[in-house]
């Protein structure tokens, strides 16, 4: 049986990289004494997979991983047991049991939304919001995507599902996943370019609000929708 765990990573834990978060949860699951399933062999490892890696420095309240379990108690009990062993900054928000045949979190991730604010000492995000609508209403939004091997010019407009100014910062909903993965930093870089302003990566604090998948109707829904809460029998 598979479960999906939703967690938040905030505060100073934004400096813990993705691989270390994976190691962190493997240890947390042992501390919480959850009955997770292991692979066979001399060095058995837990059968867990993470949804979408989060960049260093980014905080989030919508992170997910899946775990194969041998047995379950209840959603509530397992959330409580994990939270009893969390470091400040990590919080397990919810756990559901995945329906039969559900694909892994990594496979189904389709989008994430973010809130962008200015870091202290880097001005006010409201200085940027005025021009946001004009930027987003362009027909094409051309950016240069740099990877390890090459630089490619691309139009990211189709992958920005929403871009709007909110009270607390810039809100954006972006395509996420193994194909068409658009990072919020890339959007901000394109936006700064549009404004003829230098893009300083450090100027913006990125906070992920939620990670989404598509339901049968094609609508973006929380990754938790693939499962249900469970109770002690």
């Amino acid at each position: 049986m598979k479960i999906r765990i939703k967690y938040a990573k905030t505060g100073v834990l934004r400096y813990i990289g993705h691989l270390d978060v994976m190691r962190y949860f493997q240890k947390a699951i042992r501390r919480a004494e959850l009955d997770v399933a292991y692979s066979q062999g001399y060095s058995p490892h837990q059968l867990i997979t993470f949804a979408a890696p989060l960049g260093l420095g980014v905080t989030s309240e919508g992170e997910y991983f899946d775990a194969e379990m041998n047995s379950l108690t209840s959603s509530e009990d397992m959330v409580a047991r994990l939270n009893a062993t969390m470091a400040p900054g990590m919080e397990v928000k919810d756990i559901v049991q995945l329906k039969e045949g559900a694909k892994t979190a990594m496979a189904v991730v389709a989008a994430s939304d973010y809130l962008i604010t200015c870091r202290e000492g880097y001005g006010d995000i409201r200085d940027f919001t005025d021009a946001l609508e004009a930027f987003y209403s362009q027909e094409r939004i051309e950016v240069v995507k740099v990877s390890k091997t090459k630089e490619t010019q691309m139009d990211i407009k189709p992958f920005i599902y929403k871009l709007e100014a909110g009270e607390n910062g810039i809100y954006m909903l972006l395509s996420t996943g193994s194909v068409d993965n658009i990072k919020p930093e890339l959007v901000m870089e394109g936006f700064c370019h549009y404004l003829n302003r230098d893009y300083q990566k450090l100027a913006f604090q990125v906070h992920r609000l939620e990670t989404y998948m598509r339901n049968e109707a094609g609508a973006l829904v929380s990754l938790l929708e693939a499962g249900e809460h469970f109770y002690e029998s």
Partner: protein
Amino acid sequence: MERLALSDEILMAVEKPARYIGNEVNSVIKDKSSVAVRFCMCFPDAYEIGMSHLGIQILYDMFNRMEDVWCERVYSPWPDLDAIMRQKEIPLFALESQDPVREFDFLGITLQYEMCYTNILQILDLSQIPLIATERGETDPIVIGGGPCSYNPEPIADFFDLFYIGEGETVYGQLLDAYKENQKKGGTRYQFLEMAAEIEGIYVPQFYDVTYHEDGTIQSFEPNNPHAKRKIRKQVVMDFDSVPYPMKPIVPYIKATQDRVTLEIQRGCIRGCRFCQAGAIYRPTREKNVELMKQYALEMIKNTGHEEITLSSLSSSDYEGLPELTEFLIEEMGKLKVNIALPSLRIDSFSLDVMKRVQDIKKSSLTFAAEAGSQRLRNVINKGLTEDMIREGAMKAFQGGWNKVKFYFMVGLPTETEEDLKAIPELCEQLAVDYYTIPKEERIGKVSITASSSFFVPKPFTPFQWASMNTEEEFLEKAHFVKDHFFQQKNRKSLSYRYHDADLTIMEGIFARGDRKLAPAILQAYRNGCMFDAWHEMFHQEIWDQAFEDHKIDIDFYTHRERSVDEILPWDFIDIGVTKQFFIREWERAKKAEVTPNCKQKCSGCGAARFGGGVCFENKN
């Protein structure tokens, strides 16, 4: 801890920012207004190295069990952050509270290896604490050193207010009580040092004067303060089962070098290898109760979530409860899917059976710490391992499916001849020959025998403390000689040989038996950019050469020179319980290649029995 000492800009600019944010699972946060003493524990190397060290976890736990003490940690900032902190004048901070180290009452630095000496200065400098102890003011922390290198603290004596000689679990309570008492009565720093000097095991270097003969050897070593003792007695835990042990060790976020639960099953070693300092300074050998170890194993795995467990001791095979403990671990850890990493065990039927059950034979190798190639030289160093034992152990393993062997040797041992060096490749060759006596259908492919050698450094408090150490040229010549002889073996394709760097070994040799005259050179090397000397890519030979030259340090005086047993050695003021007479006897026996029985076979009267426990009193009711 939401407030960090470093800004986002800095943390995003440096490698592995997780080294500096604290907040790890099981780290301890206290209310600083409710504690009387703040102690900052330091391992002067990178976070990943320091976090792997058992001793700090033990002391951290011990201090934090004290209600009115808050112990925190600090490690060497990596050079990238080091540069930023200097440029922006950011004071070095402790991980837990993120408060500057200079605001603490104590800064305790563990001295695990000689090549960390410039990192001590880095820690002090970044903390904005004066480097020289006598230049520190009333508000600076008391800087205290401990660990193996404090058994000859003289090269770094100028940088420390105190050294703690011995095992940390004994007199720290007394020391902190003296500190609190002095605070209460409004005493000065100097008055506290005088109180500390009265405590067993505490050495206050500034309370001693050293004079030298014209040839550079020590003429006198005398206390200059009435509170200072002539001899500092090593502190030992004798009630080893009831001493606190960290049930909730800190779990780092980033991968530490040793990322697992460590059970300390034994302290000390019965073997008496003559090159080994640990085997002398941790005498007498004490074992922990096996039932206690089982209980610790379960509790520590539960509290950390680690996926591996290992045993710590100088010679696990000598631990009486080993079969019972390994049986328990295989059973219980198997249920929890926790790996068991076994330290090097003596190769025999028992260990082979255990190894087969906990690891994949195809991937694992047998390890022999033979230390010397010839039986004669193994007798000189009192390594109780015979060629027959090695061959028998290896043969059993080959028959059991192993085909990889690792050997550790030392080159440059006292009395070593060309014959002894040739014996290294010959021993490896012999095992290869033995391997191929097994019928082809019963063996698994080719045998692979890897030998690696380090260069021998004579250490204080060993029978070799008077011995001549080889020069860099001699070391390299010998290593090349050994390598050439590997090429001459019939089975050379199954053998490989590698040797360590000789330049760092020489440095280690200088500091290991050094005296107070070295401090100005260490200070200059640091000022000119030396740090992280243990990391070969950051080691700058030319800066050290210049520092030694400028301070008229003759390297051979410290390394190559054989000492007479009458000479006052820099560390003679320390009494480790093992007598000088014993070391002299052992030095004489070594020269005659005479073996001394181990502590369980027969007591050799080393002196450690005066501690009143451990192996000295087992089976002697």
